[in-house]
């Protein structure tokens, strides 16, 4: 009798906790969906607006669906209308940005890897000070260095050029890339370097043959970081370049702000998406290489 009573009360409890769990689960989904839509909303507006004609934009609302897939504004944003003077479009600046980003990311990553390697595996007197000063570079407000940098670029004869921008981005990327690589190499056992030295490998051989092959995860992190930073940079681009040498973010700004006639929201939105897409592509492509622990196994089991 008592047993029955007990088991029935357990059943009640079980029932109750089942309802509570179900409610909490649905509440969780509700909150998640709410937040997700909050984040996706601007992108949605951009995409639909870019597919509308100006007529539709004027008559419909922000959220209304376009009448069809109309890619005309994309074509205009990318290639212009072809009137010649005063017609700004993204294509040349897109290539400017590529020409700036690829070498800048490459050099800053490579130099960061080298400095990180030296700061961890070839310790020297005062190396922690060097690292500290490098870290300052991460915290300096970039506005503070605009003027001296402009003078430097002028003196080097590379102001208002892609080469100049590559230099600026490489220099100001090094503190971050060094930080990344240093923190990664700190966890790589120094005994690897010792073993390689006894085996007769020198400074560069150890770097290229032993450390670089196990650096894939941190290289990916650094490349994504640097690519995003440099691609999205507006401050350096707008300060150190104008006209034909400008990177895409500056061109986008000029395009959106300088139109004298009617604001073409559809073209503006298409341009903004074009300017943002490469960073998205880098995330999608490189994201899967975020694999941790490639060094596991070199150390103890």
């Amino acid at each position: 009798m008592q047993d029955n009573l007990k088991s029935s009360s357990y059943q009640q409890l079980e029932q109750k906790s089942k309802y509570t769990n179900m409610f909490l689960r649905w509440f969780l989904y509700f909150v998640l969906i709410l937040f997700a839509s909050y984040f996706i909303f601007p992108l949605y507006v951009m995409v639909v607006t870019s597919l509308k004609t100006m007529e539709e934009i004027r008559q419909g609302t922000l959220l209304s669906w376009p009448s069809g897939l109309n890619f005309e504004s994309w074509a205009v944003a990318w290639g212009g209308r072809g009137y010649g003077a005063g017609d700004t479009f993204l294509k040349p600046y897109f290539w400017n940005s590529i020409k700036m980003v690829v070498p800048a990311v490459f050099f800053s990553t490579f130099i960061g890897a080298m400095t990180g390697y030296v700061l961890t595996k070839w310790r020297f007197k005062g190396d922690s000070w060097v690292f500290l000063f490098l870290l300052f570079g991460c915290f300096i407000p970039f506005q503070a260095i605009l003027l001296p940098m402009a003078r430097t670029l002028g003196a080097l004869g590379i102001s208002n050029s892609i080469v100049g921008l590559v230099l600026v981005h490489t220099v100001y990327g090094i503190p971050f890339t060094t930080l990344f690589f240093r923190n990664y190499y700190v966890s790589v056992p120094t005994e690897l370097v010792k073993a390689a030295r006894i085996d007769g490998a020198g400074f560069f051989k150890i770097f290229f043959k032993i450390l670089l092959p196990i650096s894939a995860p941190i290289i990916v992190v650094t490349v994504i970081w640097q690519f995003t930073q440099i691609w999205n940079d507006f401050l350096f681009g707008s300060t150190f370049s104008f006209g034909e040498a400008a990177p895409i973010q500056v061109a986008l700004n000029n395009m959106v702000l300088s139109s004298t006639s009617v604001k073409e929201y559809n073209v503006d939105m298409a341009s903004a998406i074009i300017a943002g897409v490469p960073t998205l592509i880098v995330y999608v492509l490189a994201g899967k290489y975020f694999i941790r622990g490639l060094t596991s196994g070199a150390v103890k089991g």
Partner: protein
Amino acid sequence: MKTLKIEDLSKNFGSTEVLKKINLEIDEGNFLVLLGPSGCGKSTLLNIIAGLETINEGNVFIDDYNVSKVEPKDRNIAMVFQSYALYPSMNVRENMIFGLKQAKTSKEKIEQQLEKVSKFLQVDQLLERKPSQLSGGQRQRVAIGRALVREPRIFLFDEPLSNLDAKLRVEMRREIKKLHQQLKTTVVYVTHDQTEAMSLGTRIAIMNHGVIQQNDTPENIYNKPSNTFVADFIGSPSMNLIKGSLKESSGEISFTANGSNFEIPVKGYEFKDKSNLNNKEVFFGIRPEHIYFKKSNESDFEVNLRADLSEYIGHEQIMTFDYANQEILAKFPSTIKIELAKETKLFFDLTQTSLFDAMTEERI
């Protein structure tokens, strides 16, 4: 000709003196173990022999040639590390031949060496594997193999077994011993484990605070420790050091512990210097395993001590006794039953004792 000779070697990191005037010599084919607590400078000494650390003062000679300023790769040494330090991106084959390739050895010679060594160490089935796909013992073997293919004059081992679990450690210890018996190469081996040191070494150098305390055969280290540090460091539990003084009357020397009312004769003891022994403050050292429950030698000295504590550890038991308010430990087979808080008759083996000056803590 000494295979390895270290002369007046000093090393400091900033203001910390790590090694102080180290002198050390190793004959061909010897297995020298550098033993000491962590921070005693033993690994630094090994790194200096390898050429991975610079020297502040003194010299290192290999085969009578001063190698103090020679690069690690040209010292004709090979080293096995605690973490094995296998190159993670290379497979076993590439790991093992990396050094030979750097030295521009001919392809045939490399293949020949690789085959010989990998067969010898039974890693020939693993050549295409990455280090991450190997077990702890296999990694250890590959790391030794990488050292072997170079056919060095001296092998350096830096705590190679401390990352292995207890069972594997005993196995690998035997393998290293076998390896040395077969190859007869000179070895310098760093460890903080006294069992490893005792079982592997033909000579042991005990280090503390950057100084070599004693460099001797395992037997002498155990039986005739040169100071209280060595006496205390070697053995488990360590040697009992009973504080007291010596008394000399009509040529017979005896020891009396502080506060005790009986004398222990030490007539069989080999003093370094027989003068000025009367009233000398000393430590009387006797190992727990040399205190017996039954009289076994004619010279055994009989004492009655109160048992305070018993620690059972399976095959044996460690008993704590009170000797004139000083704790002393004794080790017996666990079959012996001893009642606590009672006087028990024990026998000190007087052929196995050590005496240390209480001031200098050196053996007398």
